[in-house]
């Protein structure tokens, strides 16, 4: 049975294969133009036969390269957005540096908002605390203006009462006469000035600065901008509505006045 399977391995076939092998070996061992021509033709033929296989392999390679490039594109996009964030942060930090230099008499400690204080929408947490020399009742401002004061200080974080808190009030000076008034918030970014006498000369768009009367807030920190002035004959004082200057909704980097 086993021999039947190997019926084709007879003497004739073996000798044929051996003879063909040796004759081809002899032929291709010649160094002549005819042999080179045959070799070229064989190479062409093999490349022609193998072409579909190599084409298919190329397709597979291209497909895997494509996947790889897609991944790289995503990685580069992420890197690009990260770089963009760094660029924006850099611009903001440069602005902060300029802002700090514009108040040479104040000792400003830069801080970063960690997150909102979830117990109140009128308070935020900063990433600096007692270890950084922060104390309770220190003014906090951003590059636009006053945003509040520290009300609780931990070792590494502090809680800030925002200017929008209903219980917040700050002494400000109004008009050219530097008349003292009290700023109190109402809702959103709006607030009003308490006890502004009618004889004072103020205009819509005037900036209101801290008076410096309080020990907490140094003088001349921008607080708000006059939005409207109403002179009600039935009242003794003017109704002055102001808009808070600080960008309360997009707080990120702030300064603590030490």
């Amino acid at each position: 049975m086993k021999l039947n399977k190997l019926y084709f391995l007879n003497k004739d076939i073996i000798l044929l294969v051996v003879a063909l092998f040796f004759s081809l070996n002899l032929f291709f061992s010649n160094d002549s133009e005819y042999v080179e021509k045959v070799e070229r033709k064989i190479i062409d033929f093999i490349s022609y036969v193998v072409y579909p296989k190599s084409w298919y392999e190329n397709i597979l390679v291209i497909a895997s390269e494509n996947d790889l490039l897609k991944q790289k594109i995503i990685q580069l996009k992420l890197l690009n957005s990260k770089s963009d964030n760094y660029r924006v942060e850099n611009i903001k930090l440069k602005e902060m540096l300029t802002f700090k230099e514009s108040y040479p008499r104040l000792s400003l400690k830069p801080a970063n908002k960690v997150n909102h204080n979830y117990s109140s929408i009128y308070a935020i947490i900063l990433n600096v605390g007692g270890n950084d020399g922060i104390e309770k009742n220190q003014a906090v401002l951003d590059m636009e203006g006053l945003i509040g004061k520290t009300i609780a200080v931990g070792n590494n974080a502090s809680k800030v009462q925002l200017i929008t808190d209903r219980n917040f009030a700050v002494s400000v000076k109004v008009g050219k006469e530097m008349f003292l008034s009290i700023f109190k918030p109402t809702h959103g970014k709006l607030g009003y000035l308490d006890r502004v006498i009618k004889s004072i000369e103020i205009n819509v768009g005037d900036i209101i600065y801290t008076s410096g009367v309080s020990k907490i807030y140094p003088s001349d920190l921008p607080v708000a901008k006059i939005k409207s002035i109403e002179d009600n004959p039935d009242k003794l004082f003017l109704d002055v509505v102001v808009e808070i200057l600080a960008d309360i909704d997009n707080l990120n980097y702030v300064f603590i006045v030490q």
Partner: protein
Amino acid sequence: MFLLFSKYNNIIKTVTISFILIVAQSYLPTIKISNSLLLYSDLLLLYLTFLVLNEKLYVIIIFAFFIGVFQDLIIQNDTVGLNAFLKVLAIYFISYLNKVKSLWSITFKLIYLLSIYFFHYFIYHSIFINQMTLGLTIFIFLESILNVFLFIIVDKVIHRSSSI
């Protein structure tokens, strides 16, 4: 001594005939088709055809290989091995005629032989020719016909039409 001689008698006879044929091949007349095309008859191929149709194949394969190499060395030593390859291959396919001796008609057998000769010469010439044209193909066909014709004549004269 006699036994030893009788054992190698066939080999000596075959080698001697081959040698004579190689010498005769050089002096054989040719048919001139054009200035560059001359029709030759390959006596060694004819002799190998007779041998393979009458002797054992494996012996003739070895013999064809050495005859081919010898022919290459004499005719075209740039391509040693080419004639050996083509002759061995042709001989193997011609040997198929032994298997179908009683099945195929004589005409069909001659057509088969002609086609083998044609492919033998076609491959041989295509090595030396840069581009195969219709004229050259016809020339190769004529060369094959000449050889088949010679085979028929020799077969009738020597073997009395018993080889094929």
